[in-house]
């Protein structure tokens, strides 16, 4: 048996269904599977922001939900909140606000203030979250992660291949740049 290792690949390609920042035709595509209540995702959040700033229009960033609700009781509430904001065109502001305010996770009143500031329909968000209106989408994200080798959060994919390095600025930027110069898939040996 050859001693090779091929990192898992993204089974659900990035598409119109996704929450995406940056140019659709960017040479570097970074996908994160994240949980809003996960402290490691909270730590990775500013790293991703810095990477986006560094790479600019060469990068497309996609976020998919991977709420681990049995360890993080507010993770599903948070994912539903972000999706409900998305329905009103404000996914990324809410995504960012959730990560910037992880310690207030689950405090609906605290988030309502921000929703009002964003001029969102707060009542509608409250109803949708209570009804788990976006649970099918969140579950689709989750299962696409499970089938792509996401075992915990955060898990990143760079141009469709799981990134197994540390979630650090330098190593991720290097990996993204290498991937952008590798048009076809190349198994790491």
């Amino acid at each position: 048996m050859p001693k090779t290792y091929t990192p898992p690949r993204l089974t659900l390609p990035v598409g119109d269904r996704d929450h995406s920042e940056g140019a659709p035709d960017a040479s570097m595509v970074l996908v994160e599977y994240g949980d809003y209540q996960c402290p490691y995702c909270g730590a990775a959040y500013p790293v991703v922001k810095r990477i986006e700033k560094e790479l600019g229009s060469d990068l497309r960033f996609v976020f998919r939900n991977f709420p681990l609700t049995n360890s993080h009781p507010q993770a599903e509430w948070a994912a539903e909140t972000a999706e409900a904001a998305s329905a009103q065109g404000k996914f990324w502001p809410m995504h960012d606000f959730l990560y910037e305010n992880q310690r207030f996770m689950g405090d609906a009143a605290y988030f309502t203030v921000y929703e009002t500031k964003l001029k969102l329909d707060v009542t509608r968000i409250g109803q949708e979250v209570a009804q788990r209106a976006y649970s099918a989408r969140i579950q689709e994200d989750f299962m696409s992660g499970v089938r792509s080798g996401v075992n915990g959060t955060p898990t990143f994919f760079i141009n469709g291949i799981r990134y197994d390095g540390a979630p650090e600025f330098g190593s991720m930027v290097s990996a993204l740049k290498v991937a952008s110069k590798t048009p076809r898939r190349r198994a790491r040996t």
Partner: protein
Amino acid sequence: MPRAEATKPPILKAGAKAPDFTLKSTPDQSVSLRDFLGRPVVLAFYPADWSPVCTDQLGLYAQVMSEFKKFNAEVLGISVDGIWSHLAFSNDRKLNFPLLSDFEPKGAVSKMYGAFEAAVGESARALFVIDKKGVIRWSYLSPDGVNPGADGILSALEDLG
């Protein structure tokens, strides 16, 4: 898929008959593998309750349970921890499948499956998918500290047909 290192125990492979066993699942209840004949069984041997990687791995299985149930599969976690540790761990992590205690004689079932790390006295992180006739159809030994995830199990369950 990472290859098992040479020093790792040789786990039972696809095609082997799954050795039957009876282990405690609660202080006064036992579970036998033969109880599940007629449906697929996933055996997840893991080193220890409470360690961070196991927590991720078993918590993930709890969350993927609805998918396992589509195959009518039963998931059984097995480690050498005592039953009281299992109970506390399972409650803490809200696990929705039994944890079996391979405690006395220590690691006996893990050894039958080739999934015992004698040097550390713990079960290896090994997965087995057993078909409804009690035959191992897929097995996988994960490198130390690596969460093997659920994808391999789901693919193996799909392949059972």
